[in-house]
C-alpha cells in the first residue's frame, strides 16, 4: 500500500468568531483576513512539513488547487510542486491536481506538468480534477453548463499534446490552436500516471475505468462516510468487468497519532474543530450552480436522498459534525496510539479496498511542531505496519516510473559567490 502525505495548506489564523461573522471561507471570504506576513510564515512552515514528510519516507507528497479559499492556499499547486521537486529526492510528487477547464489554453497544464516531471526526474502524478463549483464556476467564472464538456476536451487536448510526436492543429469545440507542440516533454512516457479526484458520480467512475485512471475520493468526512461511495465505485468496476486492484483507488483520511489515545485526543482536538468549524464554513449558495451536476447524477442523488429519508442511511443526513465527539464518532479523524491507528487504517484500506491512502497529518490550525510530531510518529511506527499491504497480490500500475536514482540530478552545492562578504 502507498502512504501519501497530503497538505491542504489551510490559513491557520481565522478568527474565533469566523463562523458567526463570516458567511463563507470560500469565494467571497473577507480579503482583510489574509495577513501576507503571516502568509509568508505559513507557506514556509507548510513547505517544511511537506519536505519533512518526504524525508520521513512517505511514498508521495500531495498538493492540490483551490481558489479564493481560506483552507487551501494553493491557487497554483504547481509552484509548490516545483519547489518540492528540487527539495525532495525519492517521494512521488502528486499534484491533485490542475483543474483543466480553468487553463487557457489547457496546454499550459501539459507544459507545466512536463516541466515538473522533468525537474523531478519522472516523479510526477498528474491529477486532473473537474474542480469544485466554488473554485471553477464562482471564483474563476466558468459557466457551469459548459464546464464538463470543456474539461473533457481539455483532457483530450493535453493527452494528445503529450503523446503526439510532432506539432499538430487542434480544432476543438472550445479550443482552437494551430500549433500544439509541448516543449518540454514528460520524462514518463507516454505520460505521467493520471489520477482523477472526484465526488461520487457514476460517470466519473465509468470514465476512470474506460481510461484506466486512478479514482481518488477526496472527502473530508472520513472512512465511515466514504464506505458507500467506495462500495459504489467497486460495484461499478465489477459491472464493467474490471479487477479489484486496490491501486485503482485513492482515499483521503485525517489522522492524528500520539503515544496514547488520550494524548492524541488532547493534541488533535483543537486543530480538528478548527477545520470542521471554520475551514468548512462554506456558504451553501455556492454549492450547486445549475448545470454543474449532470442530470444523471441529479437523478441518482434525488433517488438516494429518498432512500436516506426512508431510513436506509440516516447518519449521512444529520448534517456535518463540528464537535470533537461527533468528529471522532463519525470517523472524520482517526486518532490513537500508533498501533491503534495502524489497526484502524488497515481496516479502512481493506474495507474500502484502497491502495493509495492519502493522509492529512496537518489539518486546521495545527502548527509545525505538532504536524511534524504527527508525521514522524506515523512514519516511524504506523507506516511500517501497513506498507506491505496488498503488494503480495496486486501491482500498482498507476505509480510514477522515475529515472534510475543514479541518473537523477540533485541540487548541487553552489560555488563561492563573487560578492564582498
Amino acid at each position: 500500500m502507498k502512504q501519501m502525505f497530503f497538505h491542504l495548506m489551510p490559513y491557520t489564523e481565522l478568527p474565533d468568531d469566523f463562523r458567526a461573522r463570516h458567511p463563507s471561507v470560500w469565494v467571497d471570504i473577507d480579503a482583510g483576513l489574509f495577513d501576507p506576513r503571516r502568509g509568508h510564515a505559513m507557506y514556509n512552515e507548510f513547505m517544511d512539513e511537506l519536505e519533512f514528510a518526504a524525508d520521513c519516507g512517505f511514498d508521495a507528497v500531495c498538493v492540490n488547487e483551490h481558489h479564493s479559499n481560506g483552507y487551501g492556499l494553493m491557487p497554483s499547486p504547481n509552484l509548490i510542486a516545483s519547489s518540492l521537486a528540487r527539495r525532495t529526492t525519492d517521494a512521488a510528487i502528486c499534484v491533485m491536481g490542475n483543474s483543466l477547464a480553468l487553463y487557457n489554453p489547457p496546454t499550459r497544464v501539459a507544459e507545466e506538468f512536463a516541466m515538473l516531471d522533468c525537474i523531478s526526474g519522472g516523479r510526477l502524478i498528474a491529477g486532473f480534477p473537474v474542480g469544485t463549483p466554488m473554485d471553477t464556476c464562482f471564483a474563476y467564472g466558468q459557466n457551469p453548463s459548459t464546464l464538463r464538456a470543456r474539461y473533457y476536451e481539455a483532457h483530450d487536448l493535453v493527452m494528445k499534446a503529450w503523446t503526439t510526436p510532432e506539432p499538430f492543429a487542434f480544432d476543438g469545440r472550445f479550443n482552437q490552436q494551430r500549433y500544439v507542440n509541448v516543449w518540454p516533454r514528460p520524462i514518463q512516457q507516454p505520460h505521467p500516471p493520471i489520477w482523477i479526484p472526484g465526488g461520487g458520480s457514476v460517470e466519473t467512475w465509468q470514465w476512470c475505468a474506460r481510461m484506466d485512471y486512478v479514482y481518488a475520493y477526496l472527502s473530508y468526512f472520513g472512512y465511515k462516510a466514504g464506505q458507500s461511495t467506495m462500495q459504489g465505485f467497486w460495484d461499478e468496476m465489477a459491472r464493467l468487468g474490471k479487477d479489484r486492484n486496490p491501486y485503482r483507488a485513492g482515499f483521503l483520511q485525517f489522522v492524528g497519532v500520539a503515544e496514547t489515545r488520550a494524548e492524541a485526543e488532547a493534541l488533535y482536538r483543537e486543530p480538528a474543530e478548527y477545520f470542521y468549524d471554520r475551514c468548512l464554513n462554506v456558504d451553501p449558495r455556492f454549492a450547486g450552480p445549475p448545470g454543474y451536476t449532470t442530470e444523471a447524477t441529479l437523478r441518482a442523488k434525488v433517488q438516494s436522498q429518498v432512500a436516506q429519508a426512508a431510513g436506509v442511511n440516516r447518519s449521512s443526513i444529520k448534517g456535518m459534525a463540528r464537535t470533537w465527539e461527533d468528529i471522532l464518532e463519525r470517523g472524520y479523524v482517526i486518532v490513537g496510539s500508533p498501533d491503534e491507528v495502524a489497526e484502524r487504517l488497515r481496516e479502512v484500506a481493506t474495507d474500502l479496498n484502497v491502495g493509495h491512502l492519502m493522509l492529512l497529518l496537518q489539518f486546521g490550525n495545527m502548527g509545525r511542531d505538532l504536524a511534524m510530531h504527527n508525521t514522524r510518529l506515523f512514519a516511524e511506527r504506523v507506516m511500517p505496519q501497513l506498507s506491505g499491504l496488498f503488494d503480495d497480490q496486486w501491482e500498482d500500475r498507476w505509480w510514477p516510473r522515475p529515472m534510475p536514482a543514479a541518473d537523477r540530478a540533485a541540487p548541487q552545492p553552489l560555488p563561492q559567490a563573487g560578492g564582498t562578504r
Partner: protein
Amino acid sequence: MSGPSERTVQVNGQPCRVWEAGEGEPLGFLAGLGGLPQWPPVLERLAAHRRVIAPSLPGFPGGLGHDALDSHLDWLLATRDLLNEAGLAEGDLVGVSVGGALAADVAAVWPHKVRKLALVGPFGLFDAERPVADVFAQPPRKLGEVVCADPGRFAAFTEPPEGADVTEWEIVQTRAMEAAARILWPLGDTRLARRLGRIRADTLLLWGEDDRVVPPAYAQAFAAGMNASTQMRTLPGAGHLADLDQPDAVAEALLAFLG
C-alpha cells in the same frame, strides 16, 4: 381558464414546445428565469385580446437542446429559428428577464422583423455600480425570494402538479436555470450594449419596482442605448418576474403599449 393549444417545433433537431391561445394579431412571448412550467395568468389575460404565442427556448420547460448552444450567436440563431417555426417571423415581441435579453437582441440583429418590443426586467447589460444579482448562487428554495416580490407566487408556479414525477419535475426546473446560466453566466451581460443602438422598434421598458435582480435603474441605460422611441414604466408590488407578481398590471401595461 381555457389554457393554450400545444404543438412542438424543431430547433437544431430538438423539440421545443409552442403554446398558443387567443385570436388576433400574433404576439410573441419569451419567458423569464425558470421558463413556463405551466400556463401563466399573464398570458391568459393577454390571450383575451391577442393571439399569444409562447415558444419554449431550448432547455426551458418544454424545450430541449440547450447543451448544444455554446456561443451567444448559437443562442441568437436558435431564438430566431424558434420564432420563425412558431409563426413569429415578424410582429410584436415581449421578453421577460432572460427572454428579454434575447428579445432585445432579436430586435437589434433583425430590426425590421420586430414591430413593437416590450422588455420586462431584461438581462443583457451590467453596471458595476449597480450589479445584477447572482441568481445562480442561490439555494433552490431561496430563488423565489430573489425573483419575486411575493415568493409564494414563484413557489406556486414552480410546484409540481398533482401526479407529476417529482424527480423529473425538479430536473426540468434545474435545467431551466442551467439554460439561463448558459446564456447569462456569470454576470448577466450578453454584450447587448454593443447592439442596442440597432433597435428600431418602439420599445416599452417595464420593470417591477422591487426587482432585486436587474435594478430598475437599468431602464435608463437601455433607453439611452437605443435609437428608438422608448417608454419606461415601473410597477409597484412586482419583483424581477413582474409577470408572476402582477399579471393583471403587466398585461394591462403591455396591451396599452402594443395596442
